[in-house]
Every structure is written in C-alpha cells, then in structure tokens.
C-alpha cells in the first residue's frame, strides 16, 4: 500500500470539491438576493461532476487519492484523502444537495418583480455551506480540521431549522444548537488529548501510533460521546424530531439524509481508521445496544405520531440505530459484509429519507396540513407523491428489491457469519415496526374518502422525489464491484 503521506495524481480534485461550494457561498453573499439561487443551481451540477470524477480516480487507482495542503506532508501539514467511502459519500451528498436545490425552487426562488426575502437568501447560502462542510468531513484527514468542519455543519444546519421564524422552530433550533455544541466541545477535548499523547492529529499517522493507553481510551470516549450527540443516537436523539420536522421540506431532507451522516462518518473514521488495533469489542457491543434501543424506541414513537413530518423524523431516529450495528458487525473476521451493510444503510436511508421528506412537503402544501388522520383518500389526488412514499417506505422497511433490503440482509448475514445472533432481533423487529408506520401513512391515503386539494402539486417536485426513491431502490441491485469499491483504503486488522 502506498504511503498515505504522499500526494497522488488527481488530488487537486479534492480541493476543488471543497472550494466549489465555498466560493458559491461567498459569491452568494456579494450580489445576494435573486443571484444566490442562480449561483447555487449552477454550482450543484458541477459539484456532482467533480464527485463523480473523484470516484472515477479512486476506482481507477484502486487506492485513496491524497492531496497535501501547501505541499507539506503530515504531521506538519494537513492531508486531504478520498478513499472508497469518501468518494461514495461525496457523490451521494452532491446528488441530494442538487435534488434539494431544484426541489426548493418553487418555495425559495425570487423571480423578477418579487421582493427579495431574507429566508430565500439564507436558504441558498446555508445549503451550499452544508455541502461544503460535508465535503470537508468526507475528505478531511486531520482531526482538528474535521472539528472545524463539524462546527461549520452545525452552524449551517441550525439556521435552516428556524428559517421561517416561528417561535417553536426557534426553540427547536436552539435545542439542536445546544446539543451540537456539547457534542463538538466533547470532541474537541478528545482531540486535545490525542494531540497531547501522540503529537499528531493526522488520521493515518495516529493509526500507526495509538496504543490502548488510558489517554487514548479517554480521548476516544469523549470524541465518540460528542459524535453520538451530533448523530442523535438514542438517548441523545431528543433534539432531532422537532428540528427536522419543523424545517422546510427541502432542508429537512438534507438534514435527515446527510447532516446526521456527517458525524456518523467521523465515528466510523475514529473507530475503523484510527483505532482499528484497539481491543474494542465491549465498545462495539455498547454502541450496538444503543443502536438497537434506537431502532425500537424510534420506531415505536414513530408509530404514535399524529403528524407526518414528525413520524418521518422519528423514523430517522430508528434508522440511525441501524447504522450503529456496524460496530459489532464489522469488527472481527467477517468484517467485509458488516462494512458493506453499514455503508449501504447510510446510502439507502439518505436517498429514501430525502424522498420521504420531499413527499411530505408536497403533501403538506397540497393539502394544507400534514395530519395523518386527515389523509383519507389523498392517494387518489396525489398518486405520484404516494407512489414515492410507498417506494421509499419499501426501502425503510427493508423489503426487496431496495437498498434498505440489501443493507438489512447483509446485516443479518454478518450477524450469522460472526455468530452474533442477538443482533438479528432488533434488525427484524425494526423492519416490522417500520412496516407498521409506513402502513399508517398509506392505509388512510388509499381509502375511498373524498379530499380536496388546496393547491395542485408541482410536477417537477414530484419527479425529483421519485427520482431519489428510484436511486434508493436501484441500490438494491448494486453489484459486487460496488462493495469492493467501498473497501478501498479501509484498514483491516491483520492486513498490513
């Protein structure tokens, strides 16, 4: 394997992937107003092309691509690295941000003759800021850099929650901010301890130097704790449902589909890239138990919700629980299956949940409310929206063929292969409960009741939501080469 401290061809693409949204954000500030929308809409397809180019480079080289900022190798300089999972996440983020940008046009565009509003400007700038922060998280190779990226992500996400300024949304945003601040300061303390113990914060250098000392355990515990608060793992999930349910639909999709994945991605980096050599079976079991509790608690609470958006937000809490089953399942000998399962779950949930929130937004606009009890007959007047909800629900439940099915099937396989049968219980129970809450949405909607529309839905928005679900379904047909791609650059215990 190549030395992770040397630059490789194609590394400049990583810089471009970060610069593009940052430049877009700064440019949006300067001319402001209706130009912010144009800048965001122009830059997102380019960002998608860049992410694809990075993925192409990684798959052709078969190893991570590296860029050294200023040409200085770590520990003095800072490295940007893109391996298999970074490339995949970059593409997923670009697709969802692009979809959110085009979906948001009817709500946040300011055509000529309409007065410019502060909320539109905020939306377009913060969307690009979230995208920039996510890209830094996916390619960052230095723990302190990643801290700054995490904070950037929070500062961009919080204004999106309270963009319409109602007091309850401000309270939700404030709660989110306080949880996130606790998370980041705890992460920062861990970073300080890592630096004090090993004199570097570069991920691959740290991986060579760490040993199972009390300092390293403390630092890892602090960072994990902080990241869990940001990822909204049960029991630190309290901030998520009101925050995600109160944001406008386009923002909810990005928050639920991508933003929580950013801090989860760092948790993966911490345990699988920096600390793979540590004997962490007990940690994995604790994280797996919290994940299982999240699956059950999130799904049951989702079943009790009266509002569609809150139901979807609680479903996010449950689906985040599945992500943490990666830790017990991808440790040990048969780790490849567990790893594929975890990444598949990230992607399938990102696309399915974004589509779900888009549809919920469409529904709320078309009907004037999002009360599940008053959805009677809505599928007759909004067939395309309900098709999207049903297909996205398919993936959330884990019915074949869908990305959600692949993820859960691989998880079951991994738990059987590694002899950890107990994890199959929450996986299967979560699937059943998910079927329950999707049924709760679809069953009244498919009834014979008469319902009238307040506003006809925008066809373009419906198509965008359907396209995202199509991706979530298509992930179910991912070939083996895709899973091999996810393995690029992953350190495995026992493999030099």
């Amino acid at each position, binding site marked *: 394997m190549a030395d992770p401290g040397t630059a490789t061809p194609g590394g400049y693409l990583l810089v471009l992937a970060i610069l593009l949204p940052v430049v877009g954000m700064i440019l949006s500030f300067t001319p402001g107003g209706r130009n912010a929308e144009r800048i965001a809409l122009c830059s997102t397809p380019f960002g998608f092309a860049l992410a694809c180019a990075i993925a192409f480079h990684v798959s052709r080289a078969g190893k991570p691509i590296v860029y050294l900022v200023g040409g200085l190798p770590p520990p003095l300089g800072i490295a940007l690295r893109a391996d298999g999972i970074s490339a995949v996440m970059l593409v997923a983020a670009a697709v969802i941000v692009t979809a959110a940008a085009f979906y948001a046009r009817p709500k946040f565009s300011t055509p000529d003759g309409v007065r410019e509003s502060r909320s539109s400007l905020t939306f377009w700038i913060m969307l690009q800021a979230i995208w920039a922060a996510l890209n830094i998280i996916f390619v960052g190779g230095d723990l302190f850099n990643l801290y700054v990226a995490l904070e950037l992500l929070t500062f961009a996400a919080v204004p999106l929650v309270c963009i319409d300024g109602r007091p309850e949304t401000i309270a939700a945003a*404030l*709660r989110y901010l306080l949880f996130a601040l606790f998370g980041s300061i705890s992460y920062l303390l861990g970073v300080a301890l890592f630096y004090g113990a090993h004199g570097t914060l570069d991920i691959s250098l740290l991986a060579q130097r760490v040993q199972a000392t009390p300092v390293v355990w403390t630092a890892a515990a602090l960072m994990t704790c902080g990241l869990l608060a940001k990822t909204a793992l049960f029991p630190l999930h309290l901030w998520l449902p009101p925050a995600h349910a109160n944001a406008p639909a386009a923002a909810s999709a990005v928050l639920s589909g991508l933003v929580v994945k950013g801090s989860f991605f760092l948790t993966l980096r911490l345990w699988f890239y920096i600390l793979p050599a540590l004997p962490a079976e007990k940690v994995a079991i604790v994280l797996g138990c919290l994940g299982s509790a999240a699956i059950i608690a999130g799904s049951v609470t989702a079943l009790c919700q009266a509002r569609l958006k809150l139901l979807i937000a609680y479903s996010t809490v449950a689906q985040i629980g599945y992500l943490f089953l990666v830790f017990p399942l991808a440790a040990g000998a048969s780790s490849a299956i567990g790893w594929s399962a975890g990444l598949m779950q990230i992607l399938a949930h990102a696309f399915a949940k974004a589509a779900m929130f888009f549809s919920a937004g469409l529904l709320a606009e078309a009907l004037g409310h999002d*009360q599940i009890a008053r959805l009677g007959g809505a599928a007759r007047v909004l067939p395309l929206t309900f098709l999207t909800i049903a297909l996205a629900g398919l993936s959330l439940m884990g019915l074949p063929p869908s990305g959600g099915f692949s993820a859960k099937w691989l998880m079951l396989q991994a738990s059987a292969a590694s002899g950890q049968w107990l994890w199959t219980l929450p996986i299967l129970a979560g699937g059943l409960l998910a079927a329950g809450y999707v049924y709760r949405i679809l069953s009244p909607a498919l009834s014979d009741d008469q319902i009238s529309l307040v506003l006809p839905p925008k066809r373009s928005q419906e198509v965008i939501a359907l396209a995202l679900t199509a991706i979530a379904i298509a992930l179910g047909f991912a070939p083996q080469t895709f899973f091999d791609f996810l393995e690029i650059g992953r350190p495995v215990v026992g493999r030099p």
Partner: protein
Amino acid sequence: MTPSVLAGLTGAALVGFGLYGLILHPHPLRKLLAFNLIGSGVFLVFGIVARRGAAAGLRFDPVPQAMVITGIVVAFAASAIAVALILRLSAESSHVTLDPEVWTKPNGGDTK
C-alpha cells in the same frame, strides 16, 4: 504539585462544572454560559498540551496554541448564534424555554 498538573485539574473542574450546568439548568442562557465554561476548561487543557507535547525541544508547541485560537473563534461564533436565537425567541414569544411540551400545539399539524 507542578503548575501543569494544577492547570490540568482546573481544566477538568471547569469542564465538570460546565457539564453540570449544561445538563441541569433549564434556561437556555444559563446553558450557553455553562457551554462557555466547558470551552474554557478545554482551552486550558490545550494550553497544557502545548507544554507537554513539545517533543521537538521547543519551549512551547505552537500547534495547540493555534488550535486554541481557532477553538475560541468557533466558540465565540457559536455563542453569538445562540444569543441571537435566544433574543429572537424572547422577542417572538412570551416564554423562553426549551421544554418541548410548551411547543406542542393542541390542534397541531397545520402548516400555517
């Protein structure tokens, strides 16, 4: 007790007090102050790390000090956002609270 150990203990105590306040105080402004207390503790730890981590024979390691400055800027920005949100909340509604029960409306669910 060396100055480093004393500073380390002070940092740990600040983090502890801050965490206590952040969890137990209901008012968001107090929670924000508690967060800043944790922040001070963490920055103090960084300060000691700068002394201990100087492996290269320098008197101080400049890297943690650069990180502290960045951390202070970030914490300042975070506090500014939080204060702005608290001010806005108190302007928009009569009660400044994070209690979710207050915000669940009896009819709920209508988008406007």
